[in-house]
């Protein structure tokens, strides 16, 4: 679905990622893990086409990113940005309808199918009752769920999410993750997301990409990559793995107080 070859990313003179050869197959769900400033968002923006790689290439569906016409690409992958700044008083439903843009380049108004899809997307994020609210009056978590709903309405095979669990309460964190897992399993969608919650990531992902922030990286199936020594090294903090029933729980092993 998405593939990088010898991808190199820099922030100014600082090397973030070097020689990334990475393949994400259809139906897989990847979590990108690393410390603050390790270049996770930079990688995500590069995959989304918002930024050119400093070296190497990104392919989506076997075609180099820069060879895709933008409108076609918008039907292939959706991107959830880390944060949003809402300058205008759009209603929640309007922000979701705007995500249908790639599907009718030559129409002035949306059709009734777009409205059906938009309402379904809002309902799946449990924000249907907020449809007519000004987005600037929503809480952080509500706004985030409306943004994810918009992304779902874009209806693409590939979803790139920069911290989807940001600002969500516990219940919605797991319901969003459940939804993403279901999309991968049942509809064969592909998910690449950034997350800081290791337990959430472990449950929701099939694979993980660890980034050190100095060029080093490690990628593979969750069971292989998400081991205590590796995670401790990449996150710069000792981490223990506790087996709880059938689940593996990751806990930072130093006391704070």
């Amino acid at each position, binding site marked *: 679905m998405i593939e990088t070859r010898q991808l190199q990313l820099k922030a100014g003179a600082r090397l973030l990622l070097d020689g990334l050869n990475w393949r994400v197959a259809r139906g897989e769900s990847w979590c990108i893990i690393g410390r603050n400033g390790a270049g996770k968002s930079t990688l995500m923006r590069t995959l989304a086409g918002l930024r050119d790689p400093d070296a190497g290439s990104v392919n989506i569906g076997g075609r180099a990113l820069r060879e895709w016409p933008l409108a076609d690409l*918008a039907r292939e992958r959706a991107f959830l940005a880390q944060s949003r700044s809402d300058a205008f008083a759009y209603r929640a439903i309007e922000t979701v309808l705007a995500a249908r*843009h790639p599907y009718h380049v030559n129409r002035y108004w949306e059709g009734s199918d777009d409205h059906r899809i938009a309402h379904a997307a809002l309902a799946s994020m449990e924000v249907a009752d907020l449809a007519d609210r000004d987005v600037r009056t929503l809480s952080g978590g509500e706004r985030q769920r409306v943004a994810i709903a918009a992304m779902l309405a874009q209806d693409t095979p590939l979803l790139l999410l920069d911290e989807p669990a940001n600002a969500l309460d516990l219940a919605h964190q797991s319901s969003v993750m459940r939804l993403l897992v279901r999309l991968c399993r049942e509809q064969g969608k592909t998910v690449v997301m950034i997350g800081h919650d290791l337990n959430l990531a472990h449950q929701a992902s099939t694979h993980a990409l660890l980034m050190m922030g100095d060029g080093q990286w490690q990628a593979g199936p969750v069971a292989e990559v998400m081991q205590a020594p590796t995670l401790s090294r990449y996150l710069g903090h000792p981490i223990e793995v506790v087996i709880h029933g059938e689940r593996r729980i990751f806990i930072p092993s130093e006391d704070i107080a």
Partner: protein
Amino acid sequence: MHPFFRTMRHRATVVITALALLAVASLVLSGMIGSVPVPLSDMPGALVELAKGDAHSMAATLLDLRLSRALVAFVTGAALALAGVMMQALLRNPLADPYVLGISAGASVGALGALMFMWAMWAVDAAAFGGAVAVSMMLYLFARRDLRGAAAAEGGSSLLLLTGVILSSACMAMVTLMLSIAPESRLRSMIFWMIGDLAGAPLRALPWMVLALAMLFALKSARALNVLALHAEAAVTLGIRVGALRKGLFFCSGLLTASAVSSAGSIGFVGLIVPHACRFACGPDHRLLIPAATLGGGAFLVLADTLARTALAPQQLPVGVVTALIGAPVFLYQLHRLRK
């Protein structure tokens, strides 16, 4: 089945029809009112005379004068309001107006220079247009990276905005310099130009062509503008060519501003409060906002100009005074209502 879907188009039709009627009504009203009133019943006959090209009756002569001035007011107001909408979308800031980037300040430098040397009227207009174009080109050169959307990752457009603000204050310094060294006899006309005055502004085809062209571009990209207003740079991921769209917005709003200020001087507040009022009344969706603000801006300036030439008759006020006097309290009221 989907009430929202029906009402959106329905509402757009109602609002645009209502504003179009308001625009026509404002033109008719401006033809009727003046030191010698023209009754509504004389209008059709006078219009027929005008259409034939020989205006010999009193009503037709008056109508010729008033209507051509009202039409200049309409095209100027419409251009300023549309430029305001575009500038606000470009900078993603609802407080931007067509003058924020200094394009009108550039026009002021040109126009005031020409007035100071007592050039002919057409040369003043040309100098104003030249000044506006010069500032636009400087802006484009300085902030090209920003317009492409490559420079700023999030929240962008600050380079463009800052460059504009600085160019604007540089131009205003030159304006002040000219005002302080200009001969006494020229001062009045220079100050009237700065406030914005429609008296003696000739009716030309060019502003209408600019307006039509910009309108076409705006309506074609209305949906893309919504996406840009929502997502800024990330609009790329929804298939918007952000760089091209922002360049288009920059050129159209610059051209509109240049054409508006070079025929009527820098009339304030229209480009700020008309888009604001329309957004307040019918929402931020550009598909409705663009035609609504254009019609609303035109009608607003026609009414303001009618007021300007009748309020203290026989003395004529520059229309910029009226728009600012109406605009400031209306804007404050809106702001207050919003905060509640």
